């Protein structure tokens, strides 16, 4: 027995040293990475916005706000954000209520279809939409053929582009709001509502005074993410051609920012807006966390919908799905259309453009690059995410709460800000994106998706009892061995799901890709789509086909993730 123990003694001393090193190494490496690729770039932007050769200055802000073009862009973006949030809410409230309250035939399928819009960056939809709503596009042709209008309507006239952007954003972002709300509503113990019901409180009052106050944090969390994403989305306004918006202005300023430092001031405004919104949300909901009572006997609160109600549900849910799929359908049709001129639908179909993807350089390189970059960033996320989640949930180091907060920042930090920061921080260094943007692209992808991974892994870790690890320690295992043999197999599902999400979102990343990749050979998928779209001739069709390929890849990933995560998927999109 003593020799047995001696062996364990010796071996575990070494492995303990390793696990301690790994533990603190993780923290230090993560901190360093977050410092150099999150805090430093933002810091550089802020300092440049306030600093000129003559010292501290507010001159750039004066210039920014003196220029009507810029102030209009700021207002437009805020309005896009507000309008998008509002319509997302209007769309999601009935949808989430239906989801939590009623069962009806085909519910699983329809609920799944509701999430489809997440699989496409809205800017791909913008390509298709333009085909449909162009002066001689399908919609006008349809209306003309039926004699409902005499002259084609200019749907995408300059004045309508604002709403085109809003609609595309809403159709892309409502699933995030819907997931947040559904999760929040499902978390409200149905017996709370029943308690009011038996007291004779009418239904509308129960909703207003019991259900919604309890679900409000979820609604708010969803709103914040939707608002910030809509406020800072670059792809959609760029492709719709709505240039009077903040992200597009920033995009155009990146290249010559050193000659025109007003760009710094504009990016700072974005940062300021984001920070304010988050502070406001913490202020309003930070301390207000309702603890649901332990659910002893859970009455599910779900009822079977009657015939009439089922019909109504189909109209609402089906209508939303149909609306949300218009951009996808239009991209699909565009990608396979051959002869399409002055008709509602193409006269002939072809798969030529799909062939071209694999024959011409740009599209294929785009797919290949995105695959490689996203794989790299996902791998980085997996390692960092698991270790950070482990260190944080098991409170292995002092100030683990601080680390947790730090890791979550990218969820709120707009992609354009980060990409912009990278360009100005790392130009003329060994990471210069002009020379080779690959390291920065991978890091940018990884940093921005790290919160998904950490959330996903933490969710798994919180569900596995710590005593499983203590038991392993009692049998002589080091922490590292326990992590490998016990922890990882148990949270594997969460890791896979988180990894799929990271991968999917890296694949459809727009702002980092558009800003950081400056040479053809390094173009990721999204930038290739954008470049093709700008090309004359068949560019529009090939970019649609490429968009379809991207959508296919992402659908597989997201369906996979949601199958693994189930209802918990919504929690990943919480701030």
């Amino acid at each position, binding site marked *: *027995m003593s020799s*047995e*123990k001696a*062996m*364990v*003694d010796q071996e*575990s001393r070494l492995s*303990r040293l390793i696990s301690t090193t790994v533990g603190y190494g993780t923290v230090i490496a993560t901190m360093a990475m977050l410092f150099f690729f999150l805090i430093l770039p933002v810091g550089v932007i802020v300092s440049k916005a306030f600093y000129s050769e003559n010292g501290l200055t507010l001159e750039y802000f004066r210039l920014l706000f003196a220029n009507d073009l810029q102030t209009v862009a700021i207002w437009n973006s805020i309005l896009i954000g507000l309008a998008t949030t509002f319509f997302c809410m209007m769309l999601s409230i009935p949808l989430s209520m239906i989801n939590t309250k009623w069962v009806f035939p085909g519910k699983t399928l329809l609920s799944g279809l509701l999430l489809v819009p997440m699989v496409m960056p809205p800017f791909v939809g913008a390509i298709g939409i333009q085909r449909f709503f162009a002066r001689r596009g399908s919609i006008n042709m349809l209306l003309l053929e039926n004699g409902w209008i005499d002259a084609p309507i200019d749907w995408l006239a300059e004045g309508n582009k604002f709403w085109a952007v809003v609609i595309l954003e809403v159709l892309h972002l409502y699933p995030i709001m819907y997931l947040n709300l559904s999760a929040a509503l499902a978390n409200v113990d149905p017996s709370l509502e029943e308690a009011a019901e038996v007291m004779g409180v009418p239904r509308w009052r129960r909703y207003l005074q019991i259900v919604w106050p309890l679900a409000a944090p979820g609604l708010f969390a969803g709103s914040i993410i939707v608002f910030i994403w809509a406020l800072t989305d670059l792809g959609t306004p760029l492709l719709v051609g709505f240039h009077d918006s903040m992200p597009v202005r920033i995009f155009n300023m990146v290249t010559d920012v050193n000659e025109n430092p007003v760009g710094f001031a504009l990016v700072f405004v974005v940062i300021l807006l984001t920070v304010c919104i988050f502070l406001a949300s913490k202020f309003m909901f930070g301390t207000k966390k309702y603890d649901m009572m332990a659910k002893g006997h859970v009455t599910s609160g779900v009822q079977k919908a009657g015939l009439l109600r089922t019909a109504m549900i189909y109209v609402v849910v089906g209508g939303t799905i149909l609306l949300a799929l218009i951009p996808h359908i239009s991209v699909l049709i565009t990608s396979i259309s051959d002869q399409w001129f002055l008709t509602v639908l193409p006269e002939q179909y072809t798969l030529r453009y799909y062939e071209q993807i694999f024959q011409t350089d740009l599209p294929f390189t785009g797919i290949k690059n995105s695959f490689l970059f996203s794989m790299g960033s996902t791998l980085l996320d997996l390692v960092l995410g698991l270790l950070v989640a482990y260190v944080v949930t098991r409170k292995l180091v002092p100030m683990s709460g601080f680390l947790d907060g730090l890791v979550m920042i990218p969820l709120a930090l707009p992609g354009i800000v980060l990409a912009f920061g990278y360009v100005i921080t790392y130009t003329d260094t060994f990471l210069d994106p002009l020379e080779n943007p690959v390291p920065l692209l991978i890091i940018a992808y990884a940093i921005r998706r790290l919160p998904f991974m950490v959330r996903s892994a933490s969710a798994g870790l919180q569900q596995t*009892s710590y*005593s*499983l690890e*203590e*038991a*392993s*320690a*009692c*049998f*002589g*295992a*080091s922490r590292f*061995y326990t992590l490998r*043999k*016990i922890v990882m*197999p*148990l949270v594997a599902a969460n890791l896979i799901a988180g990894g799929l999400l990271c991968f999917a979102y890296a694949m459809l990343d727009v702002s980092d890709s558009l800003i950081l990749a400056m040479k053809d050979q390094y173009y990721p998928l999204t930038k290739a789509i954008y470049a093709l779209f700008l090309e004359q001739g068949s560019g529009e069709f090939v970019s649609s086909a490429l968009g379809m390929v991207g959508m296919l890849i992402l659908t597989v990933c997201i369906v996979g993730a949601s199958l693994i995560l189930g209802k918990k998927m919504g929690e990943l999109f919480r701030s």
Partner: protein
Amino acid sequence: MEVTLDKIDKRYDSTYAVKNLDLKIEEGALHFFLGPSGCGKTTTLRMLAGLEKPTAGRILFGDKDVTSMPAADRGIGMVFQNYALWPHMTVRKNIEYGLKLRKLSKVEIQQRLDDVVGITQLDGYVDRLPGQLSGGQQQRVALARALAIRPTVLLLDEPLSNLDARLRLDMRDNISRIHKQTRITTIYVTHDQKEALSMGTAVSVMKQGHMIQTGAPRTLYNHPNSSFIASFIGETNLLIGKVTDIASDEYTVETEFGLFKTTRVVGQYKVGDEVHVSIRHEAVGVDFGKEPLVADIKLKLRLEHLTYLGESEQFKFRNDAGAFFKATVFHTPEHSICDGDEVTCRVSAEDILILPYQADTDSGT
């Protein structure tokens, strides 16, 4: 392996979970830590396991100071309250885990697996996952897993608390049998006094981080050192009284139920001191009018409530001032006593115990 706890303190921020704990656990003992929840018994066990570090004091396994030795190196076997079976591993894998970490030969591993599977009666279940087993089987797997590594000390953290009453009785016998077979020094934490009294070779009763008394089960029941132990182990009437007379070694105490005389005294008192008088419920006789009543002390009491339990009956009396006095009588004759009746009770002097007065002791009423 003899285990020694030497002046152990465990502090969380400013509150003590365990304070100044001194204890020797004998080699081969089945030693119980017994106490209400939050008394520090589980914390003590976790310190023995190496999962928590004492704030002060030393822990010795034999002569070896293991105070700052991590759990992995102590060679202990532990059964967790929730069993902590790894759900992704079969019973076999669970049991082999610790053996593989010890780099034992294949033959040795198989041998030990067979041994513990036999001793815990798990034959035929080794290839199942924990989720496919009943609670009792899971409990036995946890035990088998801990035994397989031939631990120096076996630690059990409320191992039966998740089982239903029936199974719990079976498992008590099982654990006692296994302990007798292996003779491994075993430390067992529970809040169930029946478990401790029926199985333990020694029992330490803890309260609010302090060890109040350690001793054999009979010692604790018959010779409690405090009113806390008297009321915690078994059930007792704790009456507040004042010493009115001391004649040689016989003390007279005045209580609201009258005068009690006894020679059984814990502590030293002088006339006028406040004390606790402990009289076990089952030591109180009740006059059913069937046989002549011979007793040192007779009490006339009004019956407040009678609880019929089949093998016994519990009488709850109340005096005019509203104080309660309880009696439990086993195998009662047929009688017609009912709530509100005036009943005569008897108590023998040898069943009366005088203990130091303790203000916060719940008298059990």
